[in-house]
């Protein structure tokens, strides 16, 4: 597939970094604002789709490969399942970093003020870590779908 015109390529080069920053913001603030791993991962995958569509598959092969995207996906799933397994001393999917958990680990475990508040990034227990894991998985999965289907169109 040929690349698109120079205007589209320049604008997509500019927008790429802003879309990436917005996606990382949504993933990191998943426990405070609307959003989370799935939505942020979809935003990040849209950045990959923008580069692939604007520059053509030949140029995009230099940045992404099918192997890197699918291994991103597998890594995210393995991280998610291992985070779930780390709480196995109580139950599967136990939130072992939450404020009330007994072996107190001071990561993401500040107790937030009850009721409406301004939001503190250092709360949420295991939820921000799971958000990151799912974000890695979704960016790999949707990016691999776009990449493979775009490449499959050509002979």
């Amino acid at each position: 597939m040929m690349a698109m015109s120079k205007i589209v390529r320049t604008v997509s080069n500019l927008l790429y970094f802003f879309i990436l920053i917005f996606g990382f913001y949504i993933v990191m603030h998943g426990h405070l604002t609307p959003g989370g791993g799935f939505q942020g991962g979809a935003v990040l995958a849209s950045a990959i789709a923008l580069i692939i569509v604007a520059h053509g598959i030949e140029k995009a092969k230099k940045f992404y490969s099918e192997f890197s995207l699918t291994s991103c996906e597998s890594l995210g799933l393995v991280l998610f399942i291992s985070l779930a397994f780390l709480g196995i001393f109580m139950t599967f999917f136990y939130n072992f970093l939450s404020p009330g958990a007994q072996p107190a680990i001071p990561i993401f475990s500040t107790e937030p003020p009850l009721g409406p508040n301004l939001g503190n990034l250092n709360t949420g227990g295991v939820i921000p870590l799971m958000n990151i894991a799912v974000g890695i998985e979704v960016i790999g999965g949707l990016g691999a779908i776009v990449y493979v289907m775009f490449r499959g169109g050509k002979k």
Partner: protein
Amino acid sequence: MNYLYNFPFIVVAILIAMGFYAMMFKRNLIKIVIGLNIVESAVNLFLIALGYRKGAVAPIYTNAPVAKGAPAHSMVLPTPQALTLTAIVIGVATTAMILSFVVQIGKHYGTIDAKKARRLKG
């Protein structure tokens, strides 16, 4: 007057009927996939409309416009929203899967008409 109050549910019924019409009477495989997606969107709309409370805000406490000790009735139900989040991602994944099969059928038979592709043998 119940017709007006239940307007979102009636829209859901109309959308599901439209999607099933597309899936039953269209012969183009792409149009069948579009019908499936319409049904899926209708189900998502149904779940979201099911959990709505009149005059309530989103169930997020960051800068929430409710009072400090507000009762739980001032926020909409969070569980249908979580289920909808699940359904959207699964819908995207299955749509990609179905469309890749349609591409393979088009390459193999040279047509994506369901009735013609069924008669031809590989």
